[in-house]
């Protein structure tokens, strides 16, 4: 982060600025500082579910090296992590635990849905036990397609997340305004999870062509 960006939005002319800098004073916005610090040290949670977890581990090894982007350590405990990379198929049996772990993470927290299975169910979508996308229960910041995505793609998604963090506004940040975001944990019933999706977080995509049909009970 250069001093150019830190000075963004300041109405100082150059002479004043250079005088201040010679005296050891840098003028900037609180937003920029916070976002620079948060974006530069995002610590992920070790949350590998299936095959994509191996590519996530490979992106942390010496060839692709995620720690040069700030993710120095992968924390095993959700209370110490910033980022949850949901990598792998989320099944209905596992979905309540994913939501519980998301609830335990403190703000600020972000979610990357890695792989086709976490975005929308993936190749296993036609399954009685597969949750068709983790965004039915928790809000997702970056969607990363692939089956599995290459480790370079994981690094690119981390870059996108860092761009998104750098443009966040501290006044409307959920961490400062609403407190820790927690969502209700779904329960197991005889047929399916209850509720099948969280209406605050996800709505089914609207079909512009047809009118809503009623469920045909067989």
């Amino acid at each position, binding site marked *: 982060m250069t001093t150019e960006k830190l000075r963004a939005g300041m109405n100082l002319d150059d002479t004043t600025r250079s005088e201040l800098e010679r005296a050891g004073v840098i003028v900037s916005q609180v937003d920029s500082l916070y976002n620079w610090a948060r974006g530069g040290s995002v610590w992920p949670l070790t949350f590998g579910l299936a095959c994509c977890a191996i590519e996530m581990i490979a992106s942390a090894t010496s060839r692709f090296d995620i720690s040069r982007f700030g993710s120095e350590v992968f924390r095993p405990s959700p209370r110490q992590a910033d980022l949850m990379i949901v990598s792998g198929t989320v099944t*209905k049996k596992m979905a309540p635990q994913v939501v519980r772990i998301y609830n335990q993470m403190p703000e600020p927290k972000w979610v990357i849905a890695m792989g086709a299975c976490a975005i929308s169910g993936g190749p296993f979508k036609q399954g*009685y036990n597969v949750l*068709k996308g983790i965004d039915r229960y928790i809000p997702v910041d970056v969607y990363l397609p692939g089956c599995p995505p290459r480790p370079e793609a994981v690094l690119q998604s981390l870059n996108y997340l860092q761009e998104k963090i750098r443009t966040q506004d501290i006044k409307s940040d959920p961490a400062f305004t609403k407190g820790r975001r927690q969502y209700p944990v779904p329960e197991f019933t005889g*047929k399916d999870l209850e509720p099948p999706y969280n209406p605050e977080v996800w709505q089914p*995509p609207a*079909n512009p062509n*047809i009118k809503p*049909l009623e*469920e*045909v009970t067989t």
Partner: protein
Amino acid sequence: MSHIVSHEPILMKFPGTNWDEEAGALVVPTAQAVAIATWLRDNDAFSLDYCSNVTGVDYLEREIKEKITNKEGKMETVARTEPSRMDVVYHLYSMQKQTGPLVFKQRTNREQPEVESLTPVWRSCELQEREVFDLFGVNFKGHPDQRRILMWDEFEGHPMRKDYTEPFDYEWEPTPHDEILEKHQRGKVIV
């Protein structure tokens, strides 16, 4: 190569069993299953000490059309209904003699499926029989710990059966095809 095990001595010693030629399997009545399995494991000629695979197969009532030559010598299509049944299939090998496989089947009906558990004979059947119970609904008499293994405990229904219906959780897609198109047309999507 692994030598195939010959089934003739078993048919002679236990008269209740028969040999299903089409499937290449030994069909065993449920009451004698544990006795036959123990004999197969302990007998020196067979010593089938390794049970490799346990699975269930669900057959609905279906019509089979066969072409046979009738009395006048002409080809005729004959239809017969095969009743519904549920099979539990075991693949047995011998590590000592390096022979195998011998396919072993227990047959039961679909309404109240119940067979003998072979876990006391081969321990490898333990988790696989639990899976057959979970996904097909077959009750294993004598199983030490019969409960659901892959689905959650409160789940009702047996998913691998041929007449299982899925829950209502599909959303609308802009370009559906194949089974998803069928679901759209039948109205089984969330819109």
